[in-house]
């Protein structure tokens, strides 16, 4: 296929990000175009329909289903309280009475004369949508949400867990190739987003949880450690709802892999600034990448010119690439040649390849499907 390539993850020092924030159901948007919002501000509200609890009164009252509507002591649409009598029947000229009580607070929704089933709907559950990033309301999506605009530095990771959070960036390793060890963490990191180098160790994650760290960012993580933290194997990469007390963003992949130098440098430059982090990942159609967004202090009214996205596939000699599969996984090199003909790999499969030179001078052959373009500003 002519268009087969893996686009690189976005890492921008300066961009104008448009972030769409949507309610799960239609509701009310409580901000207006031009409003400046901060990450914790509520921007829209709605109510999720209440839970439904069915109750079959046929057996409780000893009646046939078609008599159910006549035995009700409450009308359809009427409020009922927990343990309140909602239906009754009498036998032996009223000597014996049987009653059915509401199992929950709610509203009587329906009574079936076919099955004797009574449906009680509980009160709606209010839902509030927060801004998640500092920025300006750029557009209102009527009854659904807003589009926020923010001038920021923007980093996409490859995989993450845990949902939205925000905190101050703190880089704790000296370099991008140093692991984030628990000894590097202390009380001062509570409420912060902590950045390490090539590996998030299990001990460090557990310590971060204890300390109340908001987010962790590093190049790699071992799958065995991830399983330990979650208590289960990740089957498909659809994450974001894990309740682990913090968000984790892995920028490169599984194993011990140095964070891309540029990503590490960018995070280091933004040390001490407030950032928003989200571990949610979906590697399927409609791809979602985990992210770190660091809004800038620049004048909110003057959007910066976004860094142009490098058109992936536009690979040429000199393009910086990262190998994303064994045997060169994680190594960064420069494309030296892009031969058009198919080349046989050691597996005997004939595929399109590229030649690349690593920093140590070694020149290798890599299938084009196994590299990611490193986008440069």
């Amino acid at each position, binding site marked *: 296929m002519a268009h087969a390539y893996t686009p690189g993850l976005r890492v921008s020092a300066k961009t104008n990000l448009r972030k769409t924030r949507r309610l799960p159901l239609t509701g009310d948007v409580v901000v207006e175009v031009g409003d400046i919002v901060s990450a914790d501000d509520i921007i829209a509200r709605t109510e999720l329909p209440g839970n439904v609890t069915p109750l079959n009164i046929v057996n409780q009252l000893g009646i046939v289903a078609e008599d159910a509507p006549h035995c009700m002591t409450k009308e359809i649409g009427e409020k009922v309280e927990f343990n309140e009598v909602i239906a009754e029947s009498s036998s032996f000229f009223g000597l014996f009475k049987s009653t059915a009580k509401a199992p929950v607070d709610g509203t009587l929704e329906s009574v079936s004369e076919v099955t004797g089933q009574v449906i009680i709907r509980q009160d709606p559950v209010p839902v509030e949508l927060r801004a998640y990033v500092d920025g300006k309301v750029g557009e209102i999506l009527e009854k659904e949400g807003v589009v926020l605009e923010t001038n920021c530095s923007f980093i996409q990771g490859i995989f993450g867990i845990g949902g939205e959070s925000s905190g101050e960036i703190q880089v704790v390793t000296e370099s991008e190739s140093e692991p984030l060890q628990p000894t590097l963490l202390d009380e001062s990191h509570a409420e912060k987003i902590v950045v390490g180098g090539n590996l998030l160790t299990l001990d460090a994650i557990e310590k971060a949880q204890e300390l109340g760290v908001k987010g962790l960012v590093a190049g790699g993580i071992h799958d065995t450690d991830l399983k330990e933290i979650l208590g289960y194997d990740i089957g*498909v990469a659809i994450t974001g709802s894990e309740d682990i007390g913090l968000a984790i963003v892995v920028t490169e992949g599984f194993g011990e892999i140095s964070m891309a130098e540029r990503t590490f440098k960018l995070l280091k430059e933004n040390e001490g600034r407030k950032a928003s982090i989200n571990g949610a990942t979906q590697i399927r159609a409609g791809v979602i990448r985990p992210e770190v967004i660091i809004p800038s202090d620049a004048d909110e009214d003057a959007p910066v010119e976004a860094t142009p996205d490098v058109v992936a596939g536009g690979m040429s000699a000199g393009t910086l690439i990262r190998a994303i599969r064994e045997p060169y996984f994680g190594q960064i090199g420069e494309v030296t040649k892009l031969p058009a003909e198919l080349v046989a790999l050691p*597996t005997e499969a004939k595929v399109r390849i590229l030649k690349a030179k690593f920093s140590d001078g070694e020149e290798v052959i890599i299938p084009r499907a196994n590299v990611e373009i490193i986008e440069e500003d």
Partner: protein
Amino acid sequence: MTIPDNINVILATDCGSTTTKAILIEKVDGEYRLKVRGEAPTTVEAPFEDVTRGVINAIEEVEELSGRQILKEGEIQTPVDGDKGVDIYISTSSAGGGLQMMVSGVVKSMTAESAERAALGAGAIVMDVIASNDGRLPHERIERIRHLRPDMILLSGGIDGGTVKHVVELAELIEAAKPRPRLGSGYNLPVIYAGNKEAREEIEDTLANVTDLQIVDNLRPTLEQERLGPAREKIHDLFMEHVMAQAPGYKKLMNMTDAPIMPTPGAVGNLMQTIAEDENIDVVGVDIGGATTDVFSVFEDTFNRTVSANLGMSYSVANVLAETGLENILRWVPFDIESSDLRNRIVNKMIRPTTIPQTLVELKLEQAIAREALRLAFEQHKSFATSLKGVQRARDISDTFDQSMAGETLVDLESLDLIVGSGGVLSHAPRREQAMLMMIDAFLPEGVTELAVDSIFMMPQLGVLSTIHREAATQVFEKDCLIRLGTSVAPFGSMKKPKEAMKIELTLPSGETLSKTLNYGELSMHPMTFRETATGEVTPLNGLDLGKGKNNPVKVELHGGEAGLVFDARGRRPFGLSDKGEMRINKLNQWYSAMNIYPEE
């Protein structure tokens, strides 16, 4: 949509979730043959949001490769005019998540299972099965229905004339949940009622106002009968009218095609049934993709399809690990590897799904995982493809030794004639022998079984073609789609100590004789090309069985293929794979070199 009588040029596309594949079929010398194939990325999602762009791109590639002009001002030119245009254009689709359904029935193992079979057979992904006895509390079922957001619901329950109450209760739960369709909010969710006909009035009273209710014949009119046809057809109609019509660009695509667009797996199922019917054979088909694995089977004229929604080679590869466990994958790996290293490699494939193995080590690992994904998907299929449950059977004295019972699997490895594999890991395996052994290891066929792979995955297009032009579909399937790999001969039974297991006496196409004896635990291959046949006798030894009783010889006619004839004396029930590290690795290396599946390192 009118289908012309005289069809010479056929264009067919399959819009998959990532790639749109187009094939061009032409009638040459009275025979339908594949001319060329083109593909382009699917354009259902942003920024394009119009499936027809990907279709046009794929067709343009077909034009370039074939030299035939098909498009005129961006539209498909029909009918053929000299060397321009095509006679018909047809398509299948699984883009945008395919067809996602929820099914519901009163008894889980009876009407609910029949409903599930109907939905799967129509090509749907079944998101959940709600049944009166599914062990969940009513409010939990409501909660589930509310959160699922399916494309449609199939509701069944009760035999005709049976109890009305239970199925109406299910309808009430659906009403209370007020489910919304997955795509778009401007219409009511389609609900197909295919249950007790006595309950139709009550079902209408309950659901007609809140859903788009459609009523069809009961899919289980009596306990002994399952009639899935009307429900399946209605699912296809609604798929076109509702689901497709909501997906970006599909209204346009529907106007372009000369026959209704079918869900991709539904079309593949059609083709499998056509083949089984035409050749009067029992068939198993498997399509192993990045996210899901579909298994199709036709045994005793009964078609079944299952989807293992989270068993695949890229997006879901980590789930294969989660479901089977590391040990089961490692048992197919012919070298030592640290378990943490293997785990990291697997999850890295999940997050970088488009990468390919570059080294032999990576290829061997990928094929080890594929064996487990295929095995698990086949296990799931076997437990679903059963005879009807809940059926009373009259038995007479002749049944005394026949232990078959209602609800037993229909998948009979002994009677299985043909296994067809498709999907990247099988179709694109660098050596055909690799695909052959992966399927033998995963399915463990017994007796004499032919194996084949779909060369370039055009079964979906041929499946929809089979509904309007059976001859063209079967000709192309036989000549251009199917690559015959060869035949596997495998006696069943096991031994504690390895003794002689099978004696082979065959006359080869050259007239020479192939005579050899295999010991238990051995695997052997004899190369023989497609269209060549070897005849003779194979005798299972020392208590093994080739289908005619223990130690009884079997007359065979064995067909070759791109791999050849495989004699598998590794035993079955159970299959003997040592769990001791070094012994296991030695054994695997012996088998792999007997099959010559990997180049020397």
